[in-house]
């Protein structure tokens, strides 16, 4: 089947969270892996003094469990899309193209700016849609329920504004 019911995928992810708690004493989460990667890249250019930054003392720029998780996600999605014949190189997503046109530089700039806010906000909030949105909420953590609500308030407001005022 090309695409599963969202409930099948969701239940599968829920069961996967049991496994990571049991086997690794960890919850699913993605954004610190990006933070560690940017630290590793910065270290290539600026040397070991990068490790003295207070943030990188908390989140040491190294390959850890979560870094391998995010790497695995890339390959898991690759395998899934190849197996169902959905893998394709796509410069601009369809819904973006319908609204804002097929220019890759425009989409690239928006992706870069959106990615910046996403990474900056995820580290400010202490987690992302996985770490807060799934893993934190399932542990009934207050911080995660508030964070997830804010993710969606910000996301719905921003997507609504962009699609209303910047249409081609």
């Amino acid at each position, binding site marked *: 089947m090309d695409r*599963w019911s*969202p409930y099948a*995928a*969701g239940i599968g*992810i*829920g069961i996967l*969270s049991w496994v990571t708690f049991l*086997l690794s*004493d960890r919850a*699913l989460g*993605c*954004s610190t892996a*990006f933070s560690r*990667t*940017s630290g590793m890249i910065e270290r290539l250019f600026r040397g070991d003094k990068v490790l003295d*930054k*207070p*943030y*990188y003392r908390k989140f040491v720029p190294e390959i*850890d469990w*979560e*870094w*391998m*998780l*995010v790497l*695995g*996600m*890339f390959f*898991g999605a*690759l*395998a*899934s*899309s190849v197996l*169902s014949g*959905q893998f394709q190189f796509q410069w601009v*997503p369809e*819904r973006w193209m319908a609204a804002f046109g097929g220019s890759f530089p425009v989409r690239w700039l928006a992706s870069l700016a*959106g*990615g*910046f*806010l*996403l*990474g900056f*906000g*995820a*580290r*400010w909030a202490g987690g992302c*849609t*996985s770490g807060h949105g799934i893993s934190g909420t399932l*542990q*009934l953590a207050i911080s*995660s329920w*508030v964070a997830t609500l*804010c993710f969606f*308030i910000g*996301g*719905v407001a*921003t*997507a609504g*504004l962009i699609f209303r005022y910047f249409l081609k």
Partner: protein
Amino acid sequence: MMRTMPGSLYENRKLQLVIGFAAGFLFGFLLQKGGVTRYDVIIGQLLLKDFTVVKVMLSAVVTGMIGVHLLRSLGLAALHPKSGSFGSVIPGGLIFGAGFGLLGYCPGTLAGAAGQGSLDALLGGIAGVLIGTAAFAQLFPKLDRAILGKGDFGEMTLPQLFKVNPWRVIPGVAFAIVALLVWMEKSGF
């Protein structure tokens, strides 16, 4: 005795990296199968036209909540709720949301989207996230002093807030989520 077995397992660093990769592989596989590694599906959710993302997330939360708390009650797992404060999760969450709405992926689905060939994710989104996390690391000492700790509520969970056993809260939350999902299906969301 059951806790000593996973205890030594947790300390096996190389094995843990392999488990992390395998768990990520399954996570990415499931996200792609659920359709949520696509920009069109995520932006459809944020435009309130396609509720796939909410359905995937809520069914993961309800399944995960019951199982993880069962493992905890059996002494097989420990919880790791994130500590937080209003100064961190509200501004951070809203900035994240603005990025979510502009990019149309979140950090995890971004990795999955890159895997399925979405070049806007691979060449734009990932670079942006890396620059954004680097900028946060740079500004962290200032932000930490100014705002991050404001209104701290620590690692508080709902059961701790109400001072009850988690199993007094879980059935209600599970029922509310399932009822919401059933209602969404019946109303054609």
